[in-house]
């Protein structure tokens, strides 16, 4: 039962990263692909109707983590206190920038909202990557299962780590490149004209950066977290996850060459899902490794909630998710197609 929940939460987090990832990525590349106000409005409108629904996945994943693995939720949220609060502030600022851009339309304010939107998106992408890096590297858990990390200490690995060290910064930058690429493919898919042309050419350059960083992160991760190669050696079928990621990355390159925007965006979704599932497979059954003493690590067994709660939860979770699939498809259909400069929808 805890294994099922481990997988379901991994799926929810992957869904969040794939969905909110493209609107974060659109924010990161905002100033590169859109050169004047009309073009920037186009970028914002391409994510306008969907970005807040994408963020609901974060809430739903957080809530599900809370009830399925309370000890993990308690330990990681209090240990990552500062970065989480900063993430919250960035999410709030970014939400304001997207929503209020259409209301306060004097030229100075437009510039201001654009900078807030792009800056908060960029920092969020880096922070998410760094958070993932922290989970993989391990945190200084004490005997009671709690820890607290400062934002940075000496940027080295070891017992006294901060949120940011050289490893987590590399993962953060890799996440930034991946999500920027993902966002560029989305904007290319949803727009046409010069914005589309710039997005496509930016995506081609970002692909090479993402490739280089993927190799780097993989090599470094294998050396600092022995659990990952060990899991792959004992369960070789797990190579299917990195294979999915590689397949996504390769097919992305191919579809970008064919200028097939939809398929290259879809390939990027596959790549991100493959990378995240590789990580969680590599750590299983750990959910939060301890850098202090391996015995203090949180696993699915010592972090799980009661058996009855997990079983009853599965029933409502399946019903709820079936409904969510329904609405999500409904909304994406209603807002399908390209956004153009003269469409009559007000508000974005």
């Amino acid at each position, binding site marked *: 039962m805890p294994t099922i929940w481990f997988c379901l939460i991994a799926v929810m987090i992957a869904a969040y990263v794939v969905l909110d990832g493209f609107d974060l990525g659109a924010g990161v590349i905002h100033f590169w692909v859109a050169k004047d106000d009309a073009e920037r409005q186009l970028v914002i409108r391409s994510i306008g109707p969907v970005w*807040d*629904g994408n*963020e*609901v996945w*974060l*809430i*739903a994943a*957080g*809530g*599900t983590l*809370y*009830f*399925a693995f*309370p*000890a993990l*939720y*308690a*330990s*990681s*949220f*209090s*240990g990552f*206190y*500062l970065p989480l*609060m900063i993430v*919250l*502030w960035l*999410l*709030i*600022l970014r*939400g*304001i920038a997207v*929503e*209020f851009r259409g*209301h306060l339309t004097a030229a100075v304010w437009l510039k201001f909202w654009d900078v807030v939107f792009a800056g908060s998106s960029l920092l969020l992408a880096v922070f998410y990557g760094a958070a993932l890096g922290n989970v993989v590297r391990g945190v200084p858990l*004490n005997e009671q*299962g*709690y*820890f*607290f990390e400062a934002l940075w200490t000496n940027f080295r690995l070891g017992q006294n780590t901060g949120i940011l060290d050289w490893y987590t910064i590399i993962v953060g930058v890799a996440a930034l490149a991946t999500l920027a690429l993902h966002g560029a493919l989305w904007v290319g898919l949803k727009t046409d004209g010069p914005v589309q042309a710039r997005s496509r050419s930016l995506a081609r350059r970002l692909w090479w950066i993402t490739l280089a960083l993927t190799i780097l992160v993989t090599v470094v991760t294998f050396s600092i977290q022995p659990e990952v190669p060990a899991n792959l050696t004992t369960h070789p079928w797990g190579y299917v996850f990195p294979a999915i990621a590689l397949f996504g990355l390769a097919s992305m390159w191919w579809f970008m060459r064919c200028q097939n925007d939809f398929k290259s965006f879809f390939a990027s979704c596959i790549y991100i899902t493959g990378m995240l599932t590789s990580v969680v497979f590599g750590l299983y059954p750990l959910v939060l490794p301890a850098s202090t003493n391996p015995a203090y690590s949180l696993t699915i067994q010592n972090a799980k*909630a*009661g058996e*009855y*709660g997990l079983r*009853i*939860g599965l029933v*409502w*979770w399946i019903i*709820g*998710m079936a*409904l*969510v699939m329904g*609405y*999500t498809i*409904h*909304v994406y259909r*209603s807002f399908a197609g390209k956004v153009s400069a003269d469409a009559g*929808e*007000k*508000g974005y």
Partner: protein
Amino acid sequence: MLESLTVHRLHFAYTITYHYLFPQLTMGLALLIVILKTLALRTGDEHYDQAARFWAHIFGINFAMGVVTGIPMEFQFGTNWAQFSRAAGGVIGQTLAMEGVFSFFLESSFLGLFLFGEKRLGPRAHWWSAVLVFVGSWLSGYLIVATDAWMQYPVAYRLSTHGEIQLASFWGLLLNPWAIWQYAHNMSGAVITGSFVMASIGAFYLLTKQFQDHAKTFVRVGVIVGLAASLFQLFPTGDAQGRMLAEHQPVTLAAMEGLFATQQGAPIAIIGQPDLQNKRLDNPLQVPHVLSFLTYRRWMSEVKGLDAFPQQDWPDNIPLLYYSYHVMVGLGTIFIAILLLAAWKLRSGTLYASRGVLWALMLSLPFPYIANTAGWMTAEFGRQPWLIYGLMRTAQGVSPQVSSGNVWFTLIGFMGLYTVLSILFLFLVYRVIEHGPREP
């Protein structure tokens, strides 16, 4: 220097109090918009659609504020109250996760359609999108109230061998009797806020002689719905909550009422200041026997005072609890008085010209917010010193590794950010009100 527990409590109190200013209007307006859309559908009168569109603008801005200030709430259980989350997450994580899975997806999907899809959807489908937004927001309210109700009156759990609190009955948690009364009381409080906001803006338009047709609709709907909700707030929901308190949290009831000594035929205090040094109510204005009657339906029944309980179980801020409760009840009584007068004038057809009553309605806008806030303060101060009543003390629930310096840092950060949000919110809503219910 405050100890770190106090700063953690301030952090949660500040962020939740600010957050709840928005959902109460969201939930109240959601119902009122459904009423307007239903009137539009039944009468086929464009007038009601225009009215609904005007309120949808305010609803959209208010909803966005509720979302961005609500996300931090779910995180704070883990960031600031880690020991509580670890022990009780298996129970209250259920209701919080269900809120995400059932309500938020529903609301966010259909709100987009409701706000931007009126032309595309047609009248009947647009009415449905309004109804689903209403259902989503009211469901969300239930799941949050059920979470709080479990902390007030824990049911449906068992203790594991490691001291964790595990869920024992899913329906027991969802159908907690405390949750049902608290929900009814809370939702009618939200409807009161929505009704007063609607009536108040209507009164403003009437007094300034703008948009008079719509203004009359706003005042009429606001007064009728608001009166029904205000009466429901007093009886049966408020009364039932008082009697649940008497049964399950008698020490809280004594502290709320400022009743220091156990007595038969206990009086109810209208005004007075709790004096903890001398254990009495200073300058009291009391009505004899009424507390006994309200609590047990007998004029001479005995009501336990604070002296009947060990001091370590007393709520830790009795004066604030006492004042919150009295502010809530006092304002609730004033609402009933104003709305009865307005409804009487409405029946006799003179309301739209009664400048005095219109002024009262217009100026009353902030008070339902204060009453709702005071009500929640009563519930949460009343629960102290317990985090989960009878099971876990507040001091045992805090995050052990998060120092007060870090909590001050984020509390100050939230204060700054929320100040900016308040300015933007007021500015945008003001513009909508100034533009009024007309086509752009």
